[in-house]
């Protein structure tokens, strides 16, 4: 029976090649889109899952006071003290913020900047059990001159040979002996590591909260209980009695696999994904697939008229309903499987587009977790076969044989309603997509044209790698300023776009000054950045006292009520020199924070980035000159970035989202049009006789087009009525995540509605035109 069914199904599909191709293609496009997003989402959700301990490892973060931000670093003393009192803690590993810097590693003449050689505790590999290719994890970080390299880093210096025992020079000073090489894990990690050394500090007292701390916890301990216990233990520590300001602190814990997508702390060096975007894309790709299934159903039913007779004959010959359903499901399943194969090809072919957009390196062919993917896709396929084939099988098997054989298989109201609902759902989704796309585009344009509060054009940035050059910067600055094309030179620690920030809490006249972001700069910083003073003036070398002065932004003035204090002393005995406009530092999600600028000096952080404002002409010559000058001061490789490029990173994900949505919308629309086309063809087939009668009675082509269009337009208008509020809720929700956001106007909704109506009229008219123009006798003969 199955073989017979298969044979008939295949012959039928072959007989209706055009329709089969359309049906399979529509479904495979939906499937391909879904598979691609699935790969992306799997990748986003796979962070740190290589580590079998991951779910039992928690990273500590701290809020020093209830109204402060949560910091992902903490004092070095915290972890050992907690381990002493809490038996649940099996081990801990820490790294020090000042060990995170980029290092120049050299072996002979081979010099390479390595971004992420991390200084960690020697226990690190108990928490993060990398697979060692050479050397032994337990002996790899016993002394301060050992270095463990990732396989990739090792190969850059030693090729495929075993480097254990060989030496490397770091930052032109210190020699390290390679003690091990590990294989990079097959899933991404929340921190990037190229290698490990022992951390440079054992701890610096409770005042230095710059250690990133991970705890390995016993299996089976609940997160909330653990957090409670940690805070209780913390409050019982003897240090609380000495340092009363610690009393208000609260410790937070984040399981390692959650850091990437669900981390909440500010000032986090960890890579951060955007869970909202991942879920949004999953939702939309799911919808795309549903639309493709609906389409499949509609196309199958549209085609069913041709198979009604076959069904009738089968029934007369004794086929039961179950036989018929199995038969039609076989038919659908064959098409679904072919569509899946085609979808794999499409996904692999178009994967580079997604990779390019999202800055990824995903591929179906060498996917790291094929088992999981196969399982996911199998489940989805089962759902697709049932969703896409189920209704049409039911519909086809339900024909009454006598009616069918007599040729009377016209509409039953129930099935017509079902199909109308399906097509409406397609248009609801398509309209939501169109509106979302337009609003995302509007927001991205808004972000890109937003007044960022500084001039990001032609500002060159490079890093000072030797601390002494920072202290004696003035002399070098004079040399740089003399270069033709350089307009101004300064230094800064956190230039716009850098998400890290020094945040201080002080007191002034008995009033608390909390959450003040502090940026360390050099003279001429505001000239380089194009940030003129709104009130007072910016720092100037002409005023000797400015080196202990302070410039604040408008938000700081507002928050701390500084209007009357400009020109007089404020916190740390600093005189407020002037006020500058707010600028965007971290991105469009965060409103401008109260910020103060100070000149590097005693008690401030170091401003280790040189910033230069350069004239637009003769860029190459100017840069070559800067490089020459700088290399005479620092013997490292000269590497620079442009401010506008590095700042673009704060909104790059939205630009990507916009592009991705663009593709989504067009694909969805095309599938919806395909669905509409098929339903229109079905409707016209069903109404051929009616159209003929109307023509006999005097209807003209225009009357017929109007008649058929009317039915569809009602559906599309209803779909729009449902889609508009839905799209409004979705997009206003999404926009509420931005501090800087565009306002929602009526236009995207109007435009999407008009587009959907126009598409409907064109599609339906194209399909109806032939029948409407035909000789009435052909239509009447149809019966």
């Amino acid at each position, binding site marked *: 029976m199955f073989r017979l069914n298969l044979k008939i199904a295949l012959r039928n599909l072959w007989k209706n090649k055009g329709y089969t191709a359309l049906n399979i293609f529509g479904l495979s496009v939906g499937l391909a889109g879904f598979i691609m997003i699935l790969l992306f989402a799997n990748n986003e959700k796979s962070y740190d899952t290589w580590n079998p301990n991951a779910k039992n490892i928690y990273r500590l973060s701290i809020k020093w006071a209830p109204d402060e931000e949560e910091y992902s670093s903490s004092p070095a003393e915290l972890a050992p003290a907690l381990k002493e009192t809490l038996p649940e803690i099996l081990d801990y590993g820490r790294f020090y913020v000042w060990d995170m810097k980029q290092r120049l590693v050299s072996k002979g003449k081979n010099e390479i900047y390595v971004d992420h050689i991390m200084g960690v505790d020697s226990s690190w590999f108990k928490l993060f059990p990398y697979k060692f290719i050479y050397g032994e994890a337990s002996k790899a970080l016993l002394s301060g001159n050992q270095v463990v390299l990732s396989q990739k880093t090792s190969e850059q210096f030693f090729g495929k040979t075993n480097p254990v025992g060989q030496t490397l020079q770091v930052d032109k000073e210190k020699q390290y002996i390679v003690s091990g090489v590990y294989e990079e894990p097959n899933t991404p990690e929340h921190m990037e590591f190229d290698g490990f050394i022992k951390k440079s500090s054992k701890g610096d007292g409770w005042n230095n909260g710059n250690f990133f701390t991970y705890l390995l916890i016993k299996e089976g301990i609940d997160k909330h209980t653990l957090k409670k216990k940690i805070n209780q233990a913390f409050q019982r520590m003897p240090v609380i009695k000495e340092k009363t300001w610690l009393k208000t602190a609260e410790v937070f814990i984040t399981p390692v696999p959650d850091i990437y997508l669900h981390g909440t702390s500010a000032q986090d060096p960890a890579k951060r994904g955007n869970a909202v975007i991942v879920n949004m894309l999953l939702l939309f790709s799911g919808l795309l697939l549903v639309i493709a299934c609906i389409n499949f159903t509609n196309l199958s039913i549209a085609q069913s008229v041709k198979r009604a007779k076959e069904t009738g004959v089968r029934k007369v010959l004794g086929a039961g309903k179950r036989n018929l359903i199995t038969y039609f499901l076989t038919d659908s399943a064959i098409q679904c499987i072919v569509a899946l194969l085609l979808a794999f090809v499409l996904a692999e072919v178009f994967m580079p587009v997604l990779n390019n957009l999202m800055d990824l390196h995903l591929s179906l062919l060498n996917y790291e977790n094929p088992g999981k993917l196969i399982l996911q896709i199998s489940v989805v396929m089962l759902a697709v076969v049932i969703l896409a084939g189920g209704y049409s099988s039911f519909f086809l098997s339900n024909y009454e044989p006598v009616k069918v054989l007599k040729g009377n298989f016209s509409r039953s109201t129930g099935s017509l309603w079902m199909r109308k609902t399906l097509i409406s759902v397609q248009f609801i989704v398509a309209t939501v997509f169109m509106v979302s796309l337009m609003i995302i585009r509007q927001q991205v344009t808004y972000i890109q044209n937003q007044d960022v509060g500084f001039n990001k054009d032609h500002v060159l940035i490079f890093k000072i790698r030797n601390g002494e050059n920072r202290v004696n910067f003035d002399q070098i600055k004079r040399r740089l300023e003399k270069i033709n094309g350089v307009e101004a030179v300064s230094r800064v620690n956190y230039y716009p776009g850098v998400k890290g920030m020094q945040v201080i809490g002080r007191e002034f006249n008995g009033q608390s000054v909390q959450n003040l972001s502090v940026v360390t700069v050099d003279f001429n910083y505001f000239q380089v950045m194009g940030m003129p003073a709104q009130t007072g003036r910016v720092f100037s070398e002409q005023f000797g006292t400015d080196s202990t002065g302070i410039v604040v932004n408008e938000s700081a003035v507002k928050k701390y009520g500084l209007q009357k204090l400009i020109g007089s002393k404020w916190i740390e005995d600093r005189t407020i020199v002037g006020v500058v406009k707010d600028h965007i530092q971290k991105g469009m999600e965060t409103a401008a924070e109260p910020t103060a600028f100070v000149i590097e000096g005693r008690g401030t952080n170091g401003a280790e980035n040189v910033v230069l404002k350069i004239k637009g002409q003769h860029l190459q010559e100017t840069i070559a000159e800067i490089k020459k000058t700088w290399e005479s001061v620092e013997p490292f490789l000269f590497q620079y970035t442009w401010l506008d490029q590095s700042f673009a990173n704060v909104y790059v994900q939205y630009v990507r989202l916009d592009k991705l949505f663009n593709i989504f919308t067009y694909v969805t629309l095309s599938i919806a049009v395909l669905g509409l086309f098929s339903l229109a063809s079905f409707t016209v087939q069903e109404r051929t006789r009616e159209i003929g009668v109307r023509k006999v009675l005097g209807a003209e082509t225009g009357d017929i087009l109007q008649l058929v269009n009317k039915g569809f337009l009602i559906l599309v208008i209803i779909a729009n009525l449902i889609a508009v509020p839905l799209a409004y809720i979705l997009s206003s929700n999404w926009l509420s995540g931005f501090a800087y956001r565009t306002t929602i106007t009526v236009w995207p909704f109007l435009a999407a509605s008009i587009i959907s109506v126009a598409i409907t009229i064109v599609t339906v008219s194209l399909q109806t035109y032939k029948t409407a123009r035909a000789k*009435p006798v052909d239509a009447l003969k149809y019966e």
Partner: protein
Amino acid sequence: MIKIENLEKVYKTEEIETTALNGINLHVKEGEFVSIMGPSGCGKSTLLNVMGLLDKPESGSYKFIDTELLKLNDRERSNFRKRNMGFVFQNFNLIDELTVFENIELPLIYNKVPATERKRLVNEIIERMNIVNRSGHFPQQLSGGQQQRVAVARALVTKPKLVLADEPTGNLDSSHGNEVMELLCELNETGTTIVMVTHSSHDASFSNRIINLKDGHVISEKINKGRTEELI
């Protein structure tokens, strides 16, 4: 009123050509009731379709009063049809989604008759056809005879000069069939020209003239004396 000369119609499929009408000549006078008879496939329905401008012949001439209809384009054909012709089909061809009233109203709408006038005309014909109490019903709710009455009413509501009927009693039992034939006779008596295709010599006996077709030719023509005398 109608002058048909040398009419030819060929049906082509991929493999064969079938000549449905092979040099037909036919004249119909105003007020006449003509029956066309013949075996299946003789071309009688094709002839009726050509006369009703529902189908196009290959060659020949078809003059209605003084207009050569075969030279008209689609739009002109459609206009001519809706102003001058009414149709009655074997299977009634009523539109299932419309009520009796709406079905009858439809040709008036396509003739752009104003709404109040439409209402008057439809009510008038509904009364004449004796289906007043059915005007709100849908076609499926009526018997075959009633459905054909509605179809006849729909054909007549525009007061056409020519009514074309294709086996109007073919789907009806004999009593309902007779009712419809009597209706057509009454109509003819008020001056409407009727051309009817039929298998039934009983039905043909209601007409003035019977034309026999075979293989696309007119093979004989017979004046129905009884009926003609009656008419005189």
